[in-house]
């Protein structure tokens, strides 16, 4: 029996297909968008705003780091509790919700795909086990290949082909999606309690973070990878770090991708757009970063917008989290991962009364409003670092409403008026641009538009969000409420949310990439890799790779080697 569904009277915003608020019907059969249907169940969208299912390029939702955050914060778990229902498991948590709640809350916001951006390779199995228990959302994870000793070997020898072979092996071993780089070199230095800026040599390995980023960008483009390297630049959170960010973006300027996409994605850029020399003269440098992005086409960014309130910061940038703990004195967890990467976790309160936090809060919005082309831009809060993903509707309402921004400006620190340009920006995004930065651009940045995501063209996955909004709605409060709880969310042709209630919780698919590397190259690399396991790893080579049983609903993307 084929499952047919017809959505009538939808006002569709589908930027990948250039559909800008057209009143249309959407036909669905067997979970896909089709041209016509014969005997469908019918949903009358009643002229409401309809978009493809949301795609989030960067949210820490699954894995060792996130779970350490949950475990260490029962006081966060105690918030947001909901009893189990016939459909839903028991829910808990605000900034570090349990996995079921993550699936339900994203679905209620109309999201259907989330990228876990930081999977420590040695702990990859943990990330996949949590993705299995994250309902509804299709997903993928990016293994961290930034501070790996194998990466250092080939960056030092300059052998990009062998580095490409290592990347191919690592992405297959971890069932990953692409190359994630966090504080390259710095987290290895943190193994001795130290750190590195872009051109500082990594202790003992004496290569620089700049060398690492460049080499990995080149190696990544040796395959037809759907996504570019995903980079958290050095010196996150340090006043004056905008120069490090610009220098990092410039490193890869000449590199081309066979996949006609940028070659570097700069993530949670807000944390990397700081001016001044200390917290006293701290100021926004969003305009400098925005100018660079406007004048170059080899870079995409996601904003990492602050949500005022308490949250849990967690990143592979061990040294940064330690410095945050030293400022707040709150609890602090660290986990260096042998030969590969690290992580740090500490709670943080972003307060509108504090000047620095207020400027941080403006920077994310400045980036979104100063960067002219929304296709280079993704909306994130680096969940939960700058704030929980449940805050996305707030960000959407402030980007769409100058009036809302001015109201908030009056309630926060006056530093907003002399250290940031947000009050002077009048631009308001419309539904079309919002659809770009939350599904269109985000799907393209990840290379998922070729795999049925982020749009409603024929053959696309029937992932659809129907918001209880008329296209003319301009009231920030109504917009915020509507983007928090959809009228309907449809995942793979199945209604999963109705009137803000989860009515079904099917399992999501895990997307992973198989880079097809030349076998001779691979064998040469494996000699070096097996030596590392023999001498330095605490697990054996044969027990390392993630077994297929950890992906009950796999979706494979092959990435052939580029000639």
């Amino acid at each position, binding site marked *: 029996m084929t499952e047919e569904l017809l959505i009538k009277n939808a006002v569709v915003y589908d930027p990948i297909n250039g559909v800008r608020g057209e009143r249309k019907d959407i036909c669905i059969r067997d979970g896909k968008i089709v041209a016509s249907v014969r005997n469908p169940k019918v949903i009358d969208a009643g002229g409401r705003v309809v978009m493809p299912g949301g795609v989030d390029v960067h949210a820490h939702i699954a894995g060792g780091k996130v779970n350490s955050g949950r475990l*260490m*914060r*029962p*006081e*966060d778990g*105690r918030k947001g509790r909901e009893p189990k229902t016939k459909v839903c498991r028991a829910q808990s948590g605000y900034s570090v919700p349990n996995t079921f709640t993550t699936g339900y809350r994203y679905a209620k916001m109309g999201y259907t795909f989330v990228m876990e951006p930081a999977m420590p390779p040695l702990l990859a199995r943990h990330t996949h086990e949590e993705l299995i228990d994250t309902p509804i959302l299709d997903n993928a994870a990016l293994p961290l290949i930034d501070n790996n000793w194998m990466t250092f070997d080939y960056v030092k020898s300059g052998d990009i082909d062998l580095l490409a072979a290592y990347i191919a092996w690592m992405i297959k071993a971890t069932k990953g999606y692409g190359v994630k780089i966090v504080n390259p070199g710095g987290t290895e230095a943190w193994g001795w309690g130290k750190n590195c800026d872009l051109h500082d040599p990594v202790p003992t390995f004496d290569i620089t973070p700049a060398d690492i980023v460049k080499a990995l960008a080149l190696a990544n483009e040796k395959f037809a990878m759907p996504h570019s390297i995903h980079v958290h630049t050095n010196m996150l959170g340090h006043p004056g770090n905008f120069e490090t960010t610009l220098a990092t973006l410039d490193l890869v300027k000449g590199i081309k991708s066979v996949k006609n996409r940028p070659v570097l994605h700069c993530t949670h850029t807000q944390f990397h757009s700081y001016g001044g020399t200390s917290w006293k003269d701290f100021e926004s440098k969003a305009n400098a970063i925005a100018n660079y992005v406007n004048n170059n086409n080899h870079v995409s960014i996601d904003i990492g917008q602050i949500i005022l309130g308490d949250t849990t910061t967690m990143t592979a940038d061990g040294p940064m989290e330690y410095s945050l703990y030293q400022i707040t*004195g*709150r*609890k602090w967890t660290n986990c260096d991962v042998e030969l590969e990467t690290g992580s740090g976790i500490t709670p943080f309160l972003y307060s509108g009364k504090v000047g620095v936090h207020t400027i941080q809060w403006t920077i994310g919005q400045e980036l979104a409003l100063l960067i002219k082309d929304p296709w280079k831009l993704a909306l994130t809060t680096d969940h939960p670092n700058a704030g929980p993903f449940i805050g996305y509707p707030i960000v959407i309402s402030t980007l769409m409403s100058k009036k809302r921004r001015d109201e908030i400006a009056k309630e926060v620190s006056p530093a907003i008026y002399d250290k940031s340009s947000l009050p002077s920006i009048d631009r308001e995004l419309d539904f079309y641009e919002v659809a770009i930065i939350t599904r269109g651009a985000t799907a393209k940045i990840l290379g998922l538009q070729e795999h049925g995501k982020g749009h409603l063209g024929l053959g696309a996955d029937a992932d659809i969000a129907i918001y209880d909004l008329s296209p003319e709605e301009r009231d920030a409060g109504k917009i915020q409420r509507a983007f928090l709880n959809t009228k309907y969310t449809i995942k793979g042709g199945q209604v999963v949310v109705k009137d803000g209630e989860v009515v079904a919780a099917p399992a999501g698919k895990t997307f992973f990439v198989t880079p097809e590397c030349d076998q001779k190259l691979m064998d040469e690399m494996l000699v070096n890799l097996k030596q590392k396991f023999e001498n330095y790893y605490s697990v054996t080579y044969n027990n390392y790779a993630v077994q297929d049983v950890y992906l009950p609903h796999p979706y494979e993307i092959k990435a052939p080697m580029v000639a």
Partner: protein
Amino acid sequence: MQTITLRLKDAVMSGIAKVPVAVDALTPDKLVGKSVEQIKAVQVWWGNSQEKAGNLFEITVEGAAASANEVKLLFEGKLNRVKYIGSGMKAGEIEARGDVDMHCGAEMEGGRVVVKGNANCWAGREMRGGELVIEGDAADNLCAMYRGEMKGMTGGKVTVYGDTGECVAQYMAGGELLIKGNVDILCGLSMSGGKITIEGNATLPGADMIGGEIIVKGKMLEMMPSFKFIETATIDGAAYKKYLGDFAMGEKKAKGTIYVR
């Protein structure tokens, strides 16, 4: 003045297993204005299912009350497995005649709770206001925080006539606590504010404290090694040694004070 008497039926605790009854739904501010039938219909948790209050308690109501301040609850019967007495209370009065179970007066904001007996763990947890009097002993984590929080008791007044357990007033940030008996180890652990007066003995009080004040009128059975003697001071005419600490937290944070007889 209205008095609502709630006598726990013997049958509730007659089984092999003594499954706790949670009465956070039965406080003066939540019951004011309700008829006895409506009170009997209030849902109360007993293990993993809710029961009508009337099925677990014999309930009688005398007099009337215009506001919660004029409502007094009287808990009677075998209360040692009745949890959350007065929890989250905003106004009015509660008297519990007998030993009560955990979370008595937890997250109280106002009103007065008197326990004619011992109170189990977490009495006065995260208290913000109001008064809690325990005429017997209080078990561990009296006036403490919930796991992971940085603040426990922030206001209100608690008096315990008997002894108390471990970690009393952990992460205290405000309010007043008077203990007439002895306290077990680590009273005032990690406190940042508020005042604790112990008329009996104490063991390792004030560890990791960064503010607030502890007075030990009885014997200091074991003193923390990381406190610094400052001077002698007099309180109510008696001489005390004044210590500053906890220097294990570093000089900048060692802003807590302990007075030792």
